[in-house]
């Protein structure tokens, strides 16, 4: 039997992405329209955000620029999920129709094979918008800049995206048991919107929910405290990279358990 290590998967993945981008370019109209749609969607989100802060200079002690920081941070953290894990949105349809079986027939990891199928370029728009917003608020807030802080930023962004991916993996995997409906995915996406606000502004029930049940507080609130409240950093902030890795692994195991549970609907 052949051994298939990390290098093998990286090589295959790059090839698939290359082919996928090539083929996407052939659907030019779709490519242009969907990118345009993404820009409009993000702009609408931002304008709402901006309008709110025209009326309230601060929310629960958080300034407009600080809120922008959370916003930009969460957009960047969203990018890997949008770019690399978008196929989760199509899982339910493939399980329902029985087409999912094709992922079980190759001598490679099922999760990898499934996820590798789509690379969504639209995510790069999120990244651009996120970096612009984050950089603007960074300058406005006069946060000191050093190599160390950049490193912490990258590690925290990485952990934050692992939380987002993990949430969506689990939400997608629900369909392995229920077969119908993508309600869990829609539900999870709704909650993503809350990730851009500091959880301190919510009541106790929601705070508990967003920290321990659907951990969106780790997407921007906890990791951003390093930069916004450097004098008072809670333990959960330091632990968030570790918890992020563990949470992602948990979501992977749930997804794979679901795939094993799958028994090929239809003939």
């Amino acid at each position, binding site marked *: *039997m052949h051994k298939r290590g990390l290098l093998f998967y990286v090589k295959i993945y790059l090839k698939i992405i290359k082919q996928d981008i090539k*083929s996407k370019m052939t659907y030019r109209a779709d490519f242009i329209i969907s990118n345009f749609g993404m820009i409009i969607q993000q702009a609408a989100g931002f304008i709402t955000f901006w309008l709110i802060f025209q009326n309230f200079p601060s929310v629960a002690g958080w300034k407009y620029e600080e809120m922008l920081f959370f916003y930009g941070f969460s957009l960047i953290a969203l990018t890997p999920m949008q770019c690399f894990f978008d196929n989760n949105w199509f899982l339910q349809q493939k399980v329902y129709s029985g087409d999912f079986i094709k992922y079980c027939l190759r001598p490679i990891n099922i999760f990898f094979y499934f996820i590798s199928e789509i690379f969504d370029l639209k995510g790069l728009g999120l990244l651009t918008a996120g970096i612009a917003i984050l950089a603007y608020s960074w300058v406005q807030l006069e946060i000191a800049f050093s190599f160390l802080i950049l490193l912490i930023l990258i590690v925290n962004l990485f952990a934050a995206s692992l939380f987002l991916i993990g949430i969506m993996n689990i939400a997608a995997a629900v369909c392995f048991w229920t077969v119908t409906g993508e309600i869990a995915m829609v539900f999870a996406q709704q909650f993503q919107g809350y990730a851009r606000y500091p959880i301190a502004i919510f009541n106790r029930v929601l705070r508990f929910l967003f920290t321990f049940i659907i951990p969106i507080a780790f997407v921007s609130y906890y990791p951003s405290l390093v930069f916004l409240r450097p004098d008072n950093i809670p333990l959960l902030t330091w632990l968030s990279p570790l918890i992020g890795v563990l949470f992602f692994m948990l979501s992977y195991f749930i997804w794979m358990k679901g795939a094993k549970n799958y028994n090929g609907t239809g003939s």
Partner: protein
Amino acid sequence: MKKIITLKNVSKEYKTLNRREGLRGSFLDLFSRNYKIINAVNDISFEIKPGEKVGLLGPNGAGKSTAIKMMSGVLKPTGGEIFVNGVIPYENRTKNAENIGVVFGQRTQLWWALPLIESFKLLKDIYMIKNADYDNMMELYKSIIDLGPLLNKPVRQMSLGQRTLSDILASFLHNPKVVFLDEPTIGLDVSVKSKIRELILELNKNKNTTIILTTHDISDIDALCERAIIIDKGNKLYDNSLENLKKFFGSYRTLKVLFKKNEEWVDYLVNEDEQSVMQKLNEIAAQKKIVDIKIEEISTEDVIKKIYDGGIND
């Protein structure tokens, strides 16, 4: 003699909910634990030798696909044992996947947006096929069929026939020991069917690949296989050479008669040893006006009915 596939008393049960009727019933079902157990495959055993061409024949829902899914490692049997090339498929899915190729008719496994040649190149990497082996296989393909119109065409633009051909080519690419073909000719017209059968036969001859084919169309088995296993409602009814089967059914034809336009065809099973199709036709025509006729081979359902009636011993 060495065996490539062994099934020992294999069973597969599914649990399904007993559904009630109506909206109220659907609501009650939400809380119901009233399961019904379905035996998709029921205590089936057989052995297959390397290079053999075996047809699994049975009507829809007979358990053929379930059997294929168990042999390809997707499903775990609820009872019994399976070995494919010495590997237990459901316990070692990836290792088993290297030795087998699987084709599901009407359900492509190729990358939808990519030209076929790019799918082949990805498969070459995934299965770690050596350059020389890959080139040899491509040479063989080119000697059997005209690859020209296929290679640079994205799979999504292909006709069903082209896609099935492509899927079969892809399944043989890594030179597997066994290829499972699940209803490969379903929905195809006669000329494409025969092209696909030709391709399968050539590949089997050249590479000595074991072929397991499921179908509900007896003419597939007739054209491709030397051995037939008949399954109905999860049970094995018959397992013997095709010749033995044909001794009993070779002389049977299904005569389909249309009496009125837009009405349903009426089937007559004719045993040509007793009465020729022409005689039967005259007999019918004497009583009723005929609009159109078709002559087909005996249907799988009729074969199964005959077996139940005790018309044949295995």
